[in-house]
C-alpha cells in the first residue's frame, strides 16, 4: 500500500515537474530579450525533454538494464524483463544530448560573433541595428 502510494507520488511529481519546467523555459525563450538567457532557456527545455524520454522508459524500484548471468533460464529472463528499466529511451537521450551539445555550442559561438559585430546581445537592440 505504502509502496504504491510512493510510486504514484514520485511519478506524478516528476510528470508535473517536467510540464512546469517546459512551460517556464518556453516562457524564458519567448520573453527574455537577452540572447544569452534565451540560449539558457533553450538548454533547460532540451534537458526537460530528455528527462521526459527517461521518464517514459522508467519504472520505480527497478534494476539497471544489465543482465549479469547468461545461463538462459526462462524464469531469470522473465524477472529481468519485468523489473529492469527500458534501456532504449536512455540510448535516445544519449544521442539527443550529443546533438544538443553541438547545437548549443554553435549557438553560443554565433552569440559571441553577434556580440563582436553588434556590440550588444539585447535582441531588441540587434533588431534595431539590423534595420
Amino acid at each position, binding site marked *: 500500500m505504502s509502496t504504491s502510494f510512493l510510486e504514484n507520488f514520485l511519478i506524478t511529481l516528476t510528470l508535473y515537474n517536467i510540464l512546469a519546467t517546459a512551460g517556464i523555459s518556453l516562457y524564458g525563450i519567448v520573453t527574455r530579450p537577452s540572447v544569452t538567457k534565451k540560449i539558457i532557456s533553450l538548454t533547460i527545455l532540451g534537458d526537460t525533454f530528455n528527462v521526459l524520454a527517461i521518464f*517514459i522508459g522508467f519504472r520505480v524500484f527497478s534494476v539497471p538494464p544489465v543482465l549479469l548471468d547468461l545461463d538462459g533460464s526462462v524464469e531469470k529472463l522473465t524477472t529481468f524483463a519485468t523489473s529492469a528499466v527500458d534501456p*532504449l529511451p536512455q540510448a535516445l537521450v544519449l544521442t539527443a544530448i550529443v546533438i*544538443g551539445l553541438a547545437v548549443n555550442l*554553435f549557438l553560443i559561438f*554565433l552569440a559571441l560573433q553577434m556580440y563582436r*559585430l553588434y556590440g550588444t546581445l539585447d535582441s531588441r537592440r540587434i533588431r534595431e*541595428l539590423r534595420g
Partner: protein
Amino acid sequence: MHSVSAAPALLVAVAFSLPLIYLKVRSVKFFHGVSLVTTVSVFLLTLHVQHYIISRETPIVYRMGGWPPPLGIVYEVDALSALLATYTALVIVFIVAYSYWYLGEDPGTPYYYSLLLGAEAGLLGIYYTGDVFNLFVMLEVLGITCYGLVAYYRSSREAVEASFKYAFFGAIAGLLYFVAAVTTYASFGNLTMGFVAAHTRPLLRHSYQYFYQFIDVFTWGNITGAVAVIVALSLWTFTFKAGVFPNHFWLPDAHPAAPTPISAVLSGLVVNAGAYASIRFLYTIFGVYDPLSQFYHLSPYFSVVLSFIGAASAVFAPIMMLIQRDVKRLIAYSTIMHLGLVFTGFSLGTALGVKASLYHILTHAAGKALLFMSAGVAVEASKTRRITDLKAVGRLNPLVGASVAISCFSLVGLPPLGGFFSKFALYQAFIEAGRFELTAVLLISSGLALLGYFKIIQPILFGFPPSDLNTSKLRELSLWTSLLPLLLLLIVLNPITVEVLLNEAAESAVLAGKYISQAVESYISYIREVQLSPGG
C-alpha cells in the same frame, strides 16, 4: 544492397576529411575537384539504388550492422524516397559545379564543401532512413550544416543574425520532433517506420499474426490522442524545415544571407525534406489518409489545417514578393509560395494530389536553383542585391539571360516548361478532389508571382549592361556546366519523361502495404537465418 548506405557514408567521410586534408594541401582548386568527384559518384550510387528499386518494384531494407528492424536501425528505400534522393544528388552536382564560379580561390572553400557535403548527407539520410529516431538525427545533421552555411560570411551582421534566428528556432523545432519520436516509442513500442505503420493498420494483422502477439503489449493509453500529438508536433518541425506559412519567418532572412550556391541548395533542396517527411508521416507511417488505417478519421482535421497553411503561404508570399527591394529576398519569398502549393497538393489525400506535389517539388527545385544561380551572376556583376541597381548581365552573357528567363517562366508555369505541367497536375488534383477554392488560390498566386518575377527579368535582361564580366576560362566553364544542364532539365521535365517515376512514387506513398511488408519480411528472414544457422 550496399549502395543505400554507401552514399551517405561516403559523403560524411569526405566531409570530415576535407578540413584535415586542408592542413597539408593548400590548393583550393583541389577541393573543388574532390567535391565534384564525390557528388558525381554519390549521384551514380543513388541512380543505382533508383534503378534497382524500379526494376524490383518493391522497397528495399538495409539493416545497419545486421540488426533486424525493430531492434536495429534500418534504411528503407521505396520509389518515393529513391526518386527524391536521386534528384537531390543530381541538382547538387550542378550546384557544386557553380561553386567554382562563385567561390574561386576563397580560402574558406574546404570548410564550405565540408558543410555542403554534410548537408547532402543529411538530405540523403532523411530520404533513405526507415527509422523515426534516425530521422531526428538526420534532421539535426542537415540543420547544423545549414546553420553553418548561412553564417559562412561570419563578418557580415546580416548573415550572423539570420543564422542565429534559423539555428535557434531550428533547435526548438528539433526538440519538438524529439518529443514526437519519444511519444512514438511510448505508444508503439518501436521506432521502425514500417513497424509503426503496421500497427496503425489493424486489417493487416491477419497476415502477420504471430508477429503481433508479442508486439501488441506495448500499446498503452489513448492511442488516437497520442497519434494526434505525434503528427501535430512532427508537422510543426516539418513545416519549419519546409518554410511554410506560420513557420516561414526564418526563411526570407536566412536564404539571402547565405552564399548564392547555398541559397540554391536551401531554397531548392533543403525545403523539400520537410515536404517529404510530412508525406511519409501522414501517408505511410500513421496512414491519416489511408482508409485501412485506424486513424483515418483524423484525416479531415489534418486536411483542413494543411490546405489552410498551404493556401495561406501561396497567397501571402507573392504579395510579399511585390514589395521586396532585394533580389535574393524576392526569390526566397517565392520558395514559400511554391512549398505552400506543394503542401496543398498532398493535403488532399489522393494519389493524384501526392503525384502533383512530387512533380511540383521536382520542377520547383530545378527552377529555383537555376534562378538563384543565374540571378547570383547579376548580383556579383553589379556588387549589390538591390533590384533597381542590377546590371543587365543577360545582354553580355546570353546563357545567364536565358537561364533567368526560362527559370522564371517555369516557376510561373508557362506551357512548354516543367513548371506548367506540375501546376497543371496540381490543378487537376484540386478539381478531382472537388476543392475549387484551391484552384483559385493556385491561379491568384501564379498571377501575383508573375508580377514579382518580372521585377527580376526586367533589369537583368533589359537594363544597362555592365562594362565587362572579367571571367577566366575555368569560371566560364563552371557557369556553363551548372546553368545549361538545369536549363535543359526544366525543358525535359514533362509528363512524357517523368510520368512513370512519379506514378511509382505516389503509389508507394499512398499504398503503404509493400513498405510495411518489406520491413516485416526483413525481420522474419532474420529470424529464419538465426534458426537455420548452426549456432542458433
